[in-house]
Structures are given as C-alpha cells and as structure tokens.
C-alpha cells in the first residue's frame, strides 16, 4: 500500500500576538474581530532548520529502512544555490545514495513535493521519500499580512508499506494568476488588489480544483470527513468557506489564529493536524493554492490506530509569547545593527566544515575500541588509554542532561543572554553548546535537554548549521 507512512510537524515556540503588532504600530492592522497570534521562528531558525526539525521528528520513531529521498519544499529556502534537502539529509544521517530535491516557486510547493514523492514511490525509484515543507515568509513591516503569516513546518514520510492514509485521487490546475508573488532579491511578499486576488484567484481556483476532484472521484462533498484548506487571511478563507457550501464543522481548523499561514508548509501542516484525529475509513480532501491549485483525496486506513498507539511527542508543542514586536523584527533581521543579525563574523574555514561534515551535521563522535571512552569532537589518540587510531565513529544521542551552564551577556548575539550548556548525552559523550528556545530562568543542573538543528552564523556568507540544546520541558 503506497501512501503516508508517518508524519510530524514543527511550529517554533514563539507566538507574536496580533495585539502586540497593533500596539507597536499604534493602529489596528488586523481585522478587529477576534484576537490571534502567529508563530515566529527564532533568530537561529530558517525554513531549512524548521524543515529539518519536522523531518527528524518524523524519522525518530520510524523503525523501517531509511528513506531514499528527501524532498524539501519552501518559498523561502535560505539559499538560491545550495540545496536545503541535502543539508537536511546530512542532519538526518541519510546515506549519499539518495535523491534530494528542493521544491520552490509557489505556495503549492509543499503539495507538489508530496505528489512528486508519490510518483517516485509508485514509479519505483524509491522505496520511500521524506517530504519536508517549511516556510518563513516575510510581509513588509506594518502590512496586515505580517499578522497572518506564521512560520512552521511539516514532514510526511511517503512510501510503500503500512500506510496510515492513501491517496485516492488527485486533481491539479495550473493557472497564472497575479495574487501574491515575490521577486528575487525582495525579502517581502508582494500583492496588488487583495479583493480580486481573494475572489477570482484563491476562491475560484480552489473551488474549481475541489469540484474537479470530486467529479473525478465520483463523490459528493457530504462524503468527505474533512476538508483541509490553507487560509492566507481571515476574510479570504471565510468567503471561500461560504462559497464552497461546506459546513464549518467539516473544515479543518486552518490554525490562522494560533500559528498563522505557514505558506508552502501550510497544506501539509494542516493535514498532520487532521490526521491526529482522523478515523479509519474517513476521506480527507487536501487543498493547496498557488499558481493554480492541487486537490488531493486521501483515505485514512486502519493503520492510523496503530500509529496513534505509539508514543509520540505532541504534534504542535507548546507556544509562549514573544516579548515584543521589536523582538520579532530582530529575529527576522529587519532592524539591522552595524554588523547585521549575527553582529560578528566568526572564523570559519569551509574546507574544515566540509571535512567535519559528518561529525557536525550527522552528529558523530568517536568511541575507543580499547577502553570504550566516547569523545566529541573526533580525535585520533585516546586520552584515557593513549591508544592510537583505535577509535570508531560513534553516533551521538540527541538527548541528555545538563551538567552545568552559564548565561553570557557579553557574547554578541541577537538574543541575550547566550546560555551555554554542558551536556552528558544519553549513550555517552559530553557536548558543549548554546541553548535554544530556553527561558533564562529555566536551566537547572540535571535538567533534560535535546539537541536541535540550528543556524549558528553566516561566516563567509555561508550559513553554518549545527546543534543547540533545547529544554525538553520548556519554560520556568
């Protein structure tokens, strides 16, 4: 059975309240109805790290063979020329002999990657493909869209096996439509006539896709258990819901008030939340919009109950308020200091980074075959038994306990204090790194932490990714 074998989501911990955005601009930017908040990626996160987090979560409980492909989807890939999928594959410790692709150019990139993964598995080149979609889009500060956009990621493991959901029908439309776009070199999304875009773009094209799919599958809307449809903003979504004739109860919560519109990741992220509560036999309609639309009909299998019985981390995890709108601006590098977001340009050698690629990205230390001592980083002569070249690579665990820590207010960083942590890793080895997403009052000796893949800096104009430690139970 070909379909979705596993799934995971990742929403960064910080939430920016609409009210805080309104306060910062001293005017009501968002529709007055309701109060919402949006997820904001930390300063050390980008769409690559968000996707990596979702991908690693998706793989952490999967016991089967490793995927033979990584498809990354985003409209905000950190680099124009440097494949994010390859970096994620390295962090996930996948072998070199896999297929990696970045999907981009449209908010439909997430479902495009999903459909391409299904084709790859059906066509035979891969046993399974991990699709990881993430977005970290920017609206110009002060624009309404700033409140509706959210940062987030989702990952789906597509393959042949005990699928929890299968794809029954697909209907795609390609249509050039001047709704939302972003030119190369512009960090901010652009648009023109919002009402025109909402009605003649988003609403018309999605309804066309939905009708087309239902026709193909010979279904009526009433046979659908859930319709999963991304919402770029409140009014477009409300209008679409009304026009579709689908009762609100059948629409999957688009998370617009709690996470925000997560761009290319949104359809997949919403699908994961839908699967959390899905029952065997249910039909789910997944919609995706951008340069046309994708409509995908999924059928939930009995396997969903087996999946649910396994111990897994909460899908979306907790959120906590971002201190202020200014913090959001700083995290997104929208108020620049003289030296930019990272303030400093640490020494780097890219030759060295390449040489240490497996150690640093896939997180390998060494274990002495004579005395079993474990070290990170790698070395050649054992400091315990002084044997030369008796080390073998040792895959480090990503969980551990805090041995000691400091809260450094001197280190130049977008966020102060920089909390440094010494960690004893499960399975052995000691690690020393920065903490991420950590309340300064939270660290305690003995506290449980886990390693998370983050961006450290951009020395030589090249994003350096490595592992930070995050509290397993955040907050004080």
């Amino acid at each position: 059975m070909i379909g979705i074998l596993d799934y995971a989501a990742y929403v960064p911990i910080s939430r920016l309240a609409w009210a805080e955005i309104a306060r910062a601009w001293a005017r009501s930017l968002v529709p007055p109805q309701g109060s919402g908040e949006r997820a904001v990626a930390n300063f050390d996160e980008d769409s690559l790290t968000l996707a990596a987090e979702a991908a690693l979560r998706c793989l952490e409980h999967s016991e089967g063979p490793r995927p033979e492909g990584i498809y990354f989807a985003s409209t905000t890939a950190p680099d124009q020329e440097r494949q994010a999928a390859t970096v994620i594959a390295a962090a996930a410790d996948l072998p070199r002999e896999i297929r990696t692709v970045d999907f981009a150019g449209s908010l439909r990139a997430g479902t495009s990657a999903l459909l391409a993964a299904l084709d790859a598995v059906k066509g035979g080149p891969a046993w399974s493909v991990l699709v990881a979609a993430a977005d970290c889009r920017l609206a110009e500060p002060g624009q309404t869209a700033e409140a509706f956009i959210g940062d987030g990621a989702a990952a789906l493991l597509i393959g042949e096996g005990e699928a929890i959901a299968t794809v029954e029908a697909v209907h795609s439309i390609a249509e050039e439509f001047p709704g939302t776009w972003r030119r190369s070199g512009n960090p901010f999304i652009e648009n023109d006539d919002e009402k025109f875009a909402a009605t003649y773009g988003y609403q018309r094209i999605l309804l066309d896709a939905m009708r087309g799919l239902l026709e193909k599958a010979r279904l009526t809307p009433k046979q659908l258990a859930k319709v999963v449809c991304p919402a770029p903003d409140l009014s477009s979504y409300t209008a679409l819901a009304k026009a579709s004739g689908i009762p609100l109860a059948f629409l999957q919560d688009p998370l617009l008030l709690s996470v925000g519109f997560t761009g290319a990741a949104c359809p997949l992220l919403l699908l994961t939340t839908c699967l959390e509560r899905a029952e065997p036999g249910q039909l789910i309609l997944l919609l995706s919009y951008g340069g046309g639309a994708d409509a995908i009909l999924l059928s939930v299998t009995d396997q969903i109950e087996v999946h649910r019985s396994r111990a897994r981390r909460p899908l979306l995890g907790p959120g906590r308020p971002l201190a202020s709108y200014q913090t959001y601006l700083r995290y997104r590098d929208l108020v620049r200091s003289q030296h930019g977001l990272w303030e400093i340009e640490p020494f780097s050698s890219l030759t060295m980074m390449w040489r240490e690629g497996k150690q640093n990205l896939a997180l390998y230390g060494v274990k002495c075959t004579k005395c079993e001592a474990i070290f990170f980083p790698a070395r050649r002569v054992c400091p315990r038994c002084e044997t030369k070249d008796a080390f073998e690579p040792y895959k480090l665990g990503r969980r551990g306990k805090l041995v000691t820590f400091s809260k450094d207010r001197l280190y130049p960083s977008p966020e102060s204090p920089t909390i440094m942590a010494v960690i004893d890793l499960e399975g052995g080895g000691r690690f020393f790194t920065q903490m991420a997403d950590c309340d300064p009052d939270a660290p305690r000796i003995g506290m449980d932490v886990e390693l998370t893949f983050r961006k450290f800096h951009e020395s030589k104009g090249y994003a350096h990714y490595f592992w930070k430690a995050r509290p397993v139970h955040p907050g004080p």
Partner: protein
Amino acid sequence: MNIRDKVAIIGVGATKFGENFTQDYSDMIVEAAYEAFEDANVPPSQIQAAWLGTCFPDSGGYQGNAGASLADALSLYRAPISRVANYCATGTDAFRNACFAVASGVYDIVLVVGAEKMRDVTPRESLVGQLAETGHPVHGKGVTAPGMFALIATRYFDCFGIGRETLAKVAMKNHRHGSLNPKAHFQKEITLEQYLKAPMVADPLSLYDCCPQTDGAAAAVICRADLASTFRQEPIYVKGLGLANPVGDGLAFDPESDFISFQATKEAAQQAYDQAGIKDPFKEIDVAEVHDCFTITELVTYEDLGFCRKGEGPEFIDKGVSSLDGELPVNTSGGLKSCGHPIGASGLRMIGEITDQLRGRAGRRQVKGAKRGLIHNLGGLGAVTSVIVLASS
C-alpha cells in the same frame, strides 16, 4: 635534574597596569625592561638571550608575534629571542623556558618580558572578539572568557551550596589589596552593596567578578644562581617550576570534567612542590599570587593548590585566611581583579610581586617575614596551568 636553586631572579620591573592610551606595545616593553635592568644592576648589553611572552599579537596579529618585536623595542638585536604563547599562562611559561635555558648552562643572564596591548581596540574587539570570532566555527561557539568560568561557578555553587556573597568576598579582598598598589589598574576598595548591584556579565558572574581589559608589560632579569650574588644582594631563587595541560582545550567536552576544580592546577602544583620539597603548602608558603581572572577561579585555586581541601575554599575566604593580615595572604598585589590582566604580562607581574614580597620591599602590602612565595597562572578553561615557587634563600 631538579630546577631547584639553579636560577635566580636579580631584577624585576613593570609598567603601571591600566588603559595605557599614551603608550604603545614597545613603549611598555622599554619601561618594564629598563626598570628590571636597573633593579638587577645589569646593563642591557649583558643580556645574552631573551624570551617574549605575548598571547594575542597586537597590530592585526603582527606586533608580539615573534621575538623580533622585543628586539625592535629594545634594539636588542644581538641576543636570540623566542616568543612564547600559552594562553593566559604565557608570562610564566616564557619565564619557565628562560629558566631552563639558564639552568642548562648555555646562558648566564637572560631577560624575560611579558607584554600585552589590549586597549588599542575597544574591549568588545579585544578579548571578547578573540573568543567570539576565533576558534572552531561551531564547536563551543557562544562562549566568552567569563562565560567559560561561569560554568565552573554554576557547578561549584550547586555542589557546595554557596552563592555570590562568597565570590564578593574574593572581589572585595582583591580590591582592598589593589588599593595599596600604585601600579594596579583599579586602586579602590569596593563594598558588598556595589558588588551586588553591579550588572551581570555571565551569570552567576557579575562585573566585579571579572578582571578588566588592561595594557601592561612586566619583566625579569634572571641569571645562574651561582652568579647571582655578583650582581646584587638578596637574589630570589627559583625553587620549582610546574606546568601541566592534562585536559587540553576540551575541558567542556571531556566526560570526566567535574567543573569544580582544575586538574591542570593540581598537577602543576604537585610538580613545583616536589621540586621545591614542599609537603604542606599551606604551612610552607608565606604568600601567593594566584590567577583570579574571575573570583571563582581564585576560590577553586585555594583548593587545587592544596591550601585547603575541596569544598573548603569558601571557609578559607570567609575567615580572612587569604587577606593581607591572614595566615596565607593571596594576591597582595590586588590580583588580576585589581591589576588587570594584560595576558602575557600577568605572569611576570605576579613574579615581580612575589619577588618584592620576598625582598621585603612591598611597602604597604608587605607580608611580614615572607620567605617563600608561590605564583599560579592559569590559561584557557584550565587548559594549562603554571605554578612557580620562589624563595629568598
């Protein structure tokens, strides 16, 4: 061969430590070296070889990078000069290497200079920049000097149930001693209230737990012990020279680090004690200059040097044992805390302070009847420690 009694110090000198905006690197070397020549009653022409200790070369990595910088400053082109760098233990290690050269019999009389120009750039560009912008691109990235030593303070506090008030006592003592030292960067006492109100730098370390960014140079003229009395009366003898680097740079990554002590200090001290024939350092050492780059370092060092047992450091400072009028005065100069820490110069400044104490010419800071003194100089997060024992006879 034991180094004991092979080498004698016949002259010491040092600049005023501080933000020496009107002096460059070479000016400070000239001032420190000529003071040492005068003290030794030795003209520069008699110097047969020299060692220069500078940790971070000035002028974009040029000045202080080679012995040539010392030759240029003093026009000492005749003598062979080596530059030594060994983190914050640079000064004492330059001295140690010079001692071995003299003890070998190759040279009779040599010069050792430690110099560091830190305030030709902003404090942010100085040592903070050194740590934030150099080193491995990602491993341990995020650490600064106070951040490193705060790891020790956090763990020490947790293990022994103490808090910042104990560290305050170290800071207040060293500021009190510094107020008596005309060459110290800071020459003022501080109150507990000032300490507690000061901004945090790297929790749990606050401003008054940290030594400042300082310029300075210090020098010593040393010679064969058997020739010392021909130059001056009251030479000071080298009794032991220990240096240890048992964990290297990777203390924070080492699964065996306990974060409440520095193995390097214990091992370097044992080497020096063995050479000097010291069995009970608390009883046999009269005065000590230790590496209080941060207050927590001094606290841990009392224990690692064997002045008291592990966990008894807080009691040691509480009871005033290490105060000027205590049983074993520590950092009579005011330490790095008050003198500042021009990295390469610090070790030689400490040697100068102990030399002065043993000669009985430390003025208001004089420890009565001091006969034997110790210098402790630690680099990195316990990556290297140098321990020296000196005595007046």
